[in-house]
């Protein structure tokens, strides 16, 4: 009952933590990609009119994520909003991802040659059709490696939600360490998870990048 070894329960606990990390990353990336794509197109299409937007997004990149978590967490208590810390976690991460994704998408859109868009328009495509069928596929190709990197960055930054009390991978590792007091071993296991996922995703990314650039 009172065990000071790493038991199979601990491993299950770690896996549950890892799952929370994955959920947080997926939800944050969903928010980040939707808004990032939208804002990225706006930023690329109306560079001067969207300066206020750029300013707001820049704030999210210039304030420590830890503070953003704390601020939203206390703000929701102040206004009496009944949402879980988990929601706070993925919303903050999502907004942060959106701010970074905007720049990635903007870069991708700007990389599409203007002449190509003009050609599309002169062939009779509407502005919307040009955006959806010409610009978006080409921009996606340019933005893809950056987007993958962003996903990995969000996964690593999701470790910070431990501060507002969400039990994710790093927190589970820390709790197990508190009991069995083998920091190197426990953190090694947690680190290995992050490492393997990051490594696998970046390998997939490299492969996809090579394939996308070939044709």
């Amino acid at each position, binding site marked *: 009952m009172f065990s000071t070894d790493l038991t199979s329960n601990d491993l299950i606990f770690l896996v549950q933590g890892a799952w929370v990390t994955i959920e947080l990353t997926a939800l944050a990336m969903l928010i980040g990609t939707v808004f990032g794509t939208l804002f990225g197109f706006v930023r690329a299409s109306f560079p001067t009119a969207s300066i206020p937007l750029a300013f707001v997004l820049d704030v999210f990149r210039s304030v420590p994520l830890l503070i953003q978590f704390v601020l939203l967490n206390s703000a929701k208590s102040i*206004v009496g909003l009944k949402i879980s810390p988990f929601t706070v976690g993925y919303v903050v991460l999502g907004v942060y991802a959106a701010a970074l994704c905007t720049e990635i998408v903007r870069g991708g859109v700007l990389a599409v040659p203007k002449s190509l868009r003009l050609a599309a328009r002169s062939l009779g495509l509407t502005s919307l059709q040009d955006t959806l069928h010409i610009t978006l596929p080409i921009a996606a190709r340019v933005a893809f490696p950056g987007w993958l990197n962003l996903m990995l960055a969000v996964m690593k930054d999701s470790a910070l939600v431990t501060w507002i009390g969400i039990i994710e991978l790093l927190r589970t590792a820390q709790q197990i360490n508190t009991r069995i007091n083998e920091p190197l071993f426990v953190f090694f296991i947690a680190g290995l998870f992050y490492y393997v996922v990051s490594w696998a995703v970046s390998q997939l990314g490299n492969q996809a990048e090579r394939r996308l650039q070939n044709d």
Partner: protein
Amino acid sequence: MFDFKYRFQWRQVINNLPAMLDGAWITFYTALLSMVIGIVIALTLLSMRRSNNVALRSVAIGWVSVARNTPALLQIYFLYFGLGAFGATISSWAALLAGITFNNAGYLTENFRGGLRAVPETQTRAARSLGMTSFQAYTRVVIPQLLRIVFYPITNQMIWALLMTSLGVVVGLNNDLMGATKALTDLSYRTFEYFAVAAIIYYVLAKLTFGVARLAGWKLFSY
């Protein structure tokens, strides 16, 4: 819909602003220190990566990939709790500094490796044929040109380091901006007010650093 009964109290935040600004200074110099050490380590790792010695090369590759593929917080935890397992207990600040420096060095090495492509190989050969040793060629010909190319990535990394110092609070640091703010909120429970002001200070600090770096870059590299 909302049950808004909270009264903001900004007065005490204003009164405690000096303590927070002292913290901001610690935040800034910790970040700066981690950058300076990080750049030196990154340059060393870069030359190790290019060496013919397999051991040296693997150490450099391993460092870079661990630093880039695991969370910074985990790295700080590892140093703070992990070194204790060897009987070497280090302070929160030392763990924070070592953690960010480790992380910075990893990212900077990758930046430098990209920048190095822009320094032609012929430069090294020319330097060597002028009688410089390989070390001299690296430090006096390659690095000055490299630093010019990677100046903006370094600036970004510096801002990132600045924001990353906020992680020190998780291992118990209490005198940097984040730590001082946390200590003040623990006394007053005015979480939102204190952290809102801390956020503004971080923002200003980041923008000031960016501005100064731009100015310095413009001064240094306008030839």
